[in-house]
């Protein structure tokens, strides 16, 4: 029985890792690099990933290319939840990973997209080269090829969305879940309250 499951896993992992259909989702300058990755000189089609789907129902991968603001956050979470399993996330660019240069004193930027959705591959750069995006896709394929369906379920369980989405889609409730321990290096460690205080200090 185990052998059969392993065989299925191998075939299935091969299939889904070679047919990553990304969602057409770009919020700022990293999106331009994403577009040029699908153009002639870099050609994301070589990995079978040129099928940019407009509908999240048919996408396997969301490349969060660009700054995610508090206003965009509910839309992003909604798009992610609309995608069918198995789904993967590449956080592209500094703004997506940690907030980048907006991290200290911005009133509007989400500090790291992994507070909203579970991220599989972090791709730093401001913006990263198209080759770096291809590299991220290769690394994601590597990850997909080594994981089984059961492991994926456990991973998602451990990386549940870290934000409580309010009923009326009000952005103010988009605060980090207090139970969740923010993985972050450096000064800023907890929630946004501290950030705001810090921002004031910086402004002064």
């Amino acid at each position, binding site marked *: 029985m185990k052998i059969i499951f392993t065989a299925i896993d191998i075939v299935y992992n091969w299939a889904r890792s070679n047919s990553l259909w990304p969602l057409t989702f770009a919020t700022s300058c990293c999106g331009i690099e994403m577009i040029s990755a699908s153009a002639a000189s870099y050609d994301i089609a070589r990995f079978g990933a040129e099928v940019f789907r407009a509908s999240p129902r048919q996408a396997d991968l969301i490349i969060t290319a660009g700054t995610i603001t508090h206003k965009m956050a509910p839309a992003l979470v909604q798009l992610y939840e609309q995608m069918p399993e*198995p789904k993967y996330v590449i956080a592209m660019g500094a703004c997506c990973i940690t907030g980048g240069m907006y991290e200290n004193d911005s009133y509007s930027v989400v500090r790291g997209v992994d507070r909203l959705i579970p991220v599989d591959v972090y791709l730093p750069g401001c913006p990263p080269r198209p080759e770096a995006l291809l590299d991220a896709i290769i690394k994601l394929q590597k990850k997909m090829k080594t994981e089984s369906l059961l492991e994926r379920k456990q991973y998602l369980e451990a990386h549940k969305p870290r934000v409580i989405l309010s009923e009326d889609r009000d952005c103010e409730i988009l605060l980090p879940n207090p139970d969740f321990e923010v993985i972050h290096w450096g000064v800023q460690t907890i929630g946004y309250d501290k950030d705001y205080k810090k921002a004031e200090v910086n402004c002064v």
Partner: protein
Amino acid sequence: MYDLYAKILNILRLPEIIAQLTWAVIPFACIAALMVFVVIFLVLMERKFLAWLTVRKGPNRVGPNGFLQTFADAIKLLFKEDIMSEETNKLLFTIAPVIAFAPVMIIYGLMPFTEHLIAINIAVGLFLVFALSSLTTVGIVLAGWSSNNKYSLLGGMRSAAQAISYEIPLVIAVLSIAVLAGSLNLKEIVTAQSGGLFSWNIFPAFIGFIVLFICSIAEVNRVPFDLPEAESELVSGYNTEYSGMKFALFFLAEYAALFIMSVLISTLFLGGYLPPFNDYLSIILLDNIIKNQAIMDILIHLEQGFWLVAKTYTLLFLIIWIRGTLPRLRADQLMGFSWKFLLPLAFINLILTSIIKLAIQGY
């Protein structure tokens, strides 16, 4: 053919009734297999050709030179989660891809791929083909309506409007073929074109060929007439809410319809399975060498298949080429093009071919 099949089953000591029952199933099994094979190859071909047209490389990582890319896509779509939102009409939502898919499959049975390779040979084949090909639109409209999504609904409505306007010039263009061949049977239409390149229907009815070609691109919702799934306007059109296998069925139906439309155009206008010479190549070249009639028959059969495939893939390449070149039309341009331009052309074509027919036959 049936006798041979019954004999084989008789050797295997199976009763006659099994042969009778299974004989009807075999063509459909073959058609389904053919359809899946054709679509898998066609999708790969399109992705490769589009890549080459835009100076790219196209899929080349999966299997030898990217040959297994579509297999990977198919397996992935099979295993993908099937999402159905709460507010959908669940019965119609499930049945819509099947309604879009089934008529295309029946059209495969009506097509004369070679002289003997035709599953259902009926007198009104041409009529039935167009009746069935417009049924696909019902599936699309149902998908749009049952999804309970405004984009899907708009896509479905657009598809209905498009199908209604493009069906008319399409059928009138095809009417000239019925006039020329004097029959609605697809096999007879092909036989009427025998006698080399210049007896093909494309010469008396060239305008009809153009009209049918444009209309069939619109009929299968291809670029530049892909308004029902216009990505920049309607997210993904009628299949916005579809995921996994149901989406794959729509995908399959679209590409299968594309292939069968090309087969239809080559059957009606380019002589179908007939060669562009006076006689079959195998007869011209090998008649003196091979004396055995049975081998000759097989060779001719294969050659017929080759000619049809060659013509079909030429047309398919043309369609992919158009997709690589032209942008999408606006909705009003689409309608105006059909009613103001294609319809008069189709009528002119009908009159011209009738005159030619009368002039040749002399009454």
